[in-house]
C-alpha cells in the first residue's frame, strides 16, 4: 500500500495552529502541552491484564458509541452491515459512526471543539499530527491504565519512531514497516518495469538493461506496434510520477553520500545518463506527450486497455485491478515484469516500500467519551486476531487455513470477489478496513493479490531496501527552509519533464544548469544541513549504525 492515493497535502496552516492554541488555552484545565488530561478510572469495570486484551475482560453492558473521523472522502462509512464490521461490533460491543471529510472539515472540528473520539489522518507530518499532544491522548498512558496488552501488539520501533518531544506516542499508523518486516521478506515490492508479453515475444525478448538496448527496444516496439505507446509511466500530476525517486530506486542510486550526509539523488550521474536516454527515446517519438498531461484516471484507463507496451510502474497493487482487467479481457496476453533500466555503474536496485512512517495514522482524542474502549479498539485491530478478521473474514465462513499456515478464501467468496466486487464489498468487506493494516497479513493469503500482479511481486523479491533514514527529514513546516524546499521540489518536478522533453542536448544541459542555479539561489546548502542532521537523528531513533 503506497502513498499513491494520499490526498493532496493541503497544509493546514496558521489558522489551525492559532485555533489549537486558543482551544488548549481555554479548554478544560488549560494544561495543554505535555501534561496529559487525567484519564477516568475504570471503577471496577475490569482489571487490566498484560497477557489478555482488555476487550475480552471488559464487563461494560451497554453498547459504546464511538465517532471516528477519517480525513478522506473515499472512506466507506458503513458499519455493522458486512461480515467484518459486524464481528467488530459484536466482539467489542461498540457502534462506530464514521465521519469523512477533508482538511476543511478537520479544521471545523478543531474550531468548534466538538471532537470525535478517534481521528485518522493521512500525513504524520501535517500540523495536526505535529501538535497531537495538545488534542490527543498518549497511547502509552492509555495502554498502561486500560490495556497493557496493547504493548504486545504495537511494534516497538514504530512507537519509538512516532515519539513526541515529551517522550510519549500519540498516533499509531498502518502499513508501518520496521527493519524486522523488511528482513522477514513478507513485504512485496510495489515497483516494476513491466511489458506486454505479446510485444516482448514479438520483438525477440531483448535485454533492456543498458541505455542503448533500451532505446533500440523502444524503436522496435514502435515499428511493430504502431498503435501502442512504447513507454509509459505513472501519471505525473504535480509530482514526478515514476520517473523521479522511483526510477532512482530502480537504478539503485545511493541514499546518502559516503559520509552519511544527505545526497541529492536528482543530480546523480548514473540517473542523469538514464534521463538523457529517456530524452532520446522521447525525441524518437517513443514517449507520448499525453503521458505528461494524463491524470491518474487517464493513466489507469490506458493500463486497463493495454495502451502502453512497457510501463515503469510504481504502486503495483493499486493497479492490480486494472492489470487484472486487461488480463481478463485478453486471455492470451498479460503484462509481465522484466529487468528494465539498470545502473550504468553497477548499483543494485534498492526499491522502496512503505516505510516506518506508514500511511494513515490514528489518534484517540482528549474528548473521547470512553478512552478505555477506544484503546481496546486499537489493540483489537492491531492484534493477529483482528487483522485476520479484517483481511480474511471469519474462519469457516469466509476462509480456511491451510496446513502450511497460509489461508485462502472459500470458493463461493472467491467467486464473488471475481465476479461482483461491489457485492463482495457490501457483504464481506475483507481487505478494506485498513486502519491498522500491515502487509505481512496480505502475504498469508494468495488471493489477496490479483493473479495479474503475482509475477511482478515475485520479480521484486530481494530487491527492497528500507529508506528509513530518509523519512521525515524535511525542514519543519513554517520555516524559511521549508518554503525554499517546496519551491525547489516544484521546480524539480517541472525540470524533470523539461529534461525528458528537451529538443536538443544543448537544451537538456541548459535546463539542468537552471535547476542547479535555482538550488544555489534557494538556501540549498542549509536544507542539506538540516536533512543531514535529521538523518542522523533517524539513525539514533532506530539504532542504525
Amino acid at each position, binding site marked *: 500500500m503506497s502513498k499513491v*492515493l494520499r490526498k493532496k497535502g493541503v497544509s493546514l496552516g496558521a*489558522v489551525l495552529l492559532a*485555533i489549537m492554541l486558543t482551544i488548549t488555552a481555554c479548554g478544560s484545565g488549560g494544561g495543554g502541552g505535555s501534561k496529559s488530561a487525567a484519564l477516568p478510572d475504570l471503577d471496577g469495570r475490569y482489571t487490566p491484564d498484560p497477557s489478555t486484551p482488555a476487550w475480552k475482560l471488559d464487563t461494560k453492558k451497554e453498547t459504546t458509541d464511538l465517532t471516528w473521523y477519517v480525513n478522506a*472522502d*473515499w472512506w*466507506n*462509512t458503513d458499519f455493522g452491515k458486512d461480515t467484518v464490521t459486524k464481528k467488530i461490533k459484536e466482539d467489542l460491543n461498540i457502534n462506530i459512526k464514521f*465521519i469523512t*471529510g*477533508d482538511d*476543511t*472539515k478537520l*479544521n*471545523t472540528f478543531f*474550531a*468548534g471543539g*466538538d471532537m470525535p473520539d478517534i481521528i485518522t489522518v493521512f500525513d504524520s507530518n501535517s500540523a495536526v499530527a505535529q501538535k497531537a499532544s495538545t488534542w490527543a491522548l498518549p497511547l502509552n498512558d492509555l495502554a498502561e491504565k486500560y490495556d497493557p496488552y496493547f504493548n504486545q501488539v504495537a511494534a516497538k520501533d514504530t512507537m519509538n519512531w512516532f515519539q513526541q518531544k515529551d517522550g510519549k506516542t500519540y498516533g499509531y499508523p498502518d502499513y508501518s514497516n520496521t527493519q524486522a518486516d523488511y528482513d522477514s521478506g513478507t513485504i512485496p515490492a510495489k515497483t516494476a518495469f513491466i511489458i506486454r508479453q505479446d510485444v516482448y515475444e514479438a520483438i525477440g525478448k531483448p535485454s533492456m538493461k543498458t541505455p542503448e538496448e533500451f532505446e533500440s527496444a523502444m524503436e522496435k516496439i514502435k515499428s511493430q506496434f504502431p498503435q501502442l505507446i512504447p513507454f509509459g509511466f505513472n501519471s505525473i500530476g504535480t509530482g514526478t510520477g515514476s520517473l523521479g525517486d522511483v526510477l532512482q530506486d530502480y537504478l539503485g542510486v545511493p541514499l546518502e553520500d559516503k559520509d552519511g550526509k544527505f545526497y541529492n539523488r536528482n543530480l546523480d550521474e548514473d540517473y542523469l545518463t538514464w534521463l538523457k536516454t529517456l530524452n532520446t527515446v522521447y525525441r524518437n517519438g517513443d514517449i507520448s506527450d499525453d503521458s505528461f498531461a494524463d491524470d*491518474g*484516471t*487517464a493513466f*489507469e*484507463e*490506458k493500463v*486497463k*486497455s493495454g*495502451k502502453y507496451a512497457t510501463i515503469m510502474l510504481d504502486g503495483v*497493487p*493499486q*493497479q*492490480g*485491478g*486494472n492489470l*487484472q*482487467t486487461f488480463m*481478463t*479481457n485478453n486471455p492470451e496476453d498479460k503484462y509481465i515484469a522484466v529487468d528494465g533500466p539498470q545502473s550504468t555503474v553497477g548499483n543494485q536496485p534498492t526499491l522502496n516500500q512503505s516505510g516506518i512512517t506508514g500511511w494513515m495514522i490514528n489518534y484517540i482524542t482528549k474528548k473521547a467519551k470512553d478512552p478505555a474502549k477506544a484503546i481496546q479498539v486499537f489493540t483489537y485491530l492491531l492484534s493477529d486476531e483482528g487483522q485476520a478478521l479484517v483481511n480474511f473474514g471469519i474462519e469457516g465462513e469466509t476462509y480456511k487455513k491451510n496446513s502450511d499456515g497460509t489461508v485462502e478464501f472459500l470458493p463461493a467468496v472467491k467467486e464473488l*470477489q*471475481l*465476479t*461482483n*466486487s*461491489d457485492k*463482495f*464489498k457490501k457483504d464481506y468487506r475483507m*481487505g*478494506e478496513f485498513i486502519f491498522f493494516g500491515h502487509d505481512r497479513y496480505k502475504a498469508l493469503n494468495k*488471493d*489477496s*493479490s*490479483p*493473479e*495479474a500482479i503475482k509475477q511482478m511481486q515475485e520479480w521484486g523479491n530481494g530487491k527492497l531496501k528500507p529508506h528509513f533514514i530518509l523519512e521525515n527529514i524535511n525542514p519543519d513546516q513554517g520555516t524559511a527552509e521549508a518554503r525554499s524546499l517546496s519551491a525547489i521540489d516544484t521546480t524539480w518536478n517541472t525540470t524533470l519533464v523539461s529534461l525528458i522533453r528537451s529538443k536538443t542536448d544543448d537544451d537538456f544541459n541548459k535546463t539542468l544548469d537552471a535547476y542547479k542555479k535555482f538550488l544555489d539561489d534557494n538556501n540549498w546548502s542549509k536544507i542539506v544541513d538540516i536533512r543531514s542532521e535529521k538523518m542522523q537523528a533517524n539513525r539514533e531513533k532506530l539504532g542504525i549504525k
Partner: protein
Amino acid sequence: MNRKAIREDLNSRVFNAFNITLLVIITLVIIIPLWNVIISSLSSGQALAEGGFIFWSPEFSLENYRAVFQDDSIWQAFFISVSKTVLGVATHVFFCAMIGYALSKQNLRGRKLYVAMGVITMFFSGGMIPIYLLIKSLGLLNTFWVYIIPALFSYYDVVILMNFFRNVPDALEESAKIDGAGEWRIFLKIFIPLSMPAMATIALFNGVGQWNDFLTTKLYITDQALYPLQMKLYEIIVQSQTQSMQNASSAVIETTTKGVQLATIVITTLPIVVIYPLLQRYFISGIMMGAVKE
C-alpha cells in the same frame, strides 16, 4: 434614393451574415462539449477507454447510470436537494424582496444606516472558522435549516430588487393608497407582480446556487440522511476512483471513473436545464405599459 436603399440592404445583409456565422460558432462551442458529455455518459467503459473525442458512441450502455442509481440513498438525497432548493429559493426571494421594498422607500427611518450595514457585508466576511462557530452556537449544525436560514439574505440581491422597486412609478403607489391599500397589500399585489423579471432572475441564480451547493453540507452536516444529491454524487465519484485501491481483483468492470463522473454531470445539470424554459416567460419587459397616465 433607390440606390441608397440597395446599398443599405447589402450592408445589412453582410452584417447579418457575419452575425449569424459568429453566433453559430459560439453556439457550437457551447453545444459540442455538452453533446460529448451526454454521449460519453451513455457509453460503455470499454468505448471510453479508447479515448479521443466521441460524437457517436460505438457501444451504448446505461451502466454508468446504473452505477449511480444503484445506491438507494440517492433518492433521499434527491428529495433533500429538491426541498432545500424549493424552500431555499422561495424564502430567499421573498425575504430579500421585503428588505428591498423597505429600503426603496426614501422615508424609511435609519435607511442610510441599513444601507451602510448592507454594503459592509458585501465586502467583508467573517471567514470560514468564525462562521462555523456562529452556525454551531445557533444550533444549526446537522439540521435541515442550515440550508435555509444562512442563505436567506444576500445584500447583492437586495440591491437589485431595490433598484427595480424604485422604477415603479410613485403614482401607482399613491393611487393604491387612496383606494385604501396598506403597505403589505401594495407590496404583495403591486410591487411583486410588477417586478417579476427581477424576481425570476434572482430565483434562477439562487436556485442554481442552492442546487449546486455542497460546501454547506461539507462544513456543517455529518448526518448522511441530510446529504443533498451533490454530496452523494461526489461520494459516488470518489468511491469509483478508489475501486482499484481496494485490490478488488474483480473481472471486467463495466464502468469507468470517467463514465460515472459524466453521468453525474448529466444528472445534476438536467433539472436546471429543464427549469430554465419555465422561468423564461417571466423575463419580459414593458409590464408597466399604460399603468400610469403621465
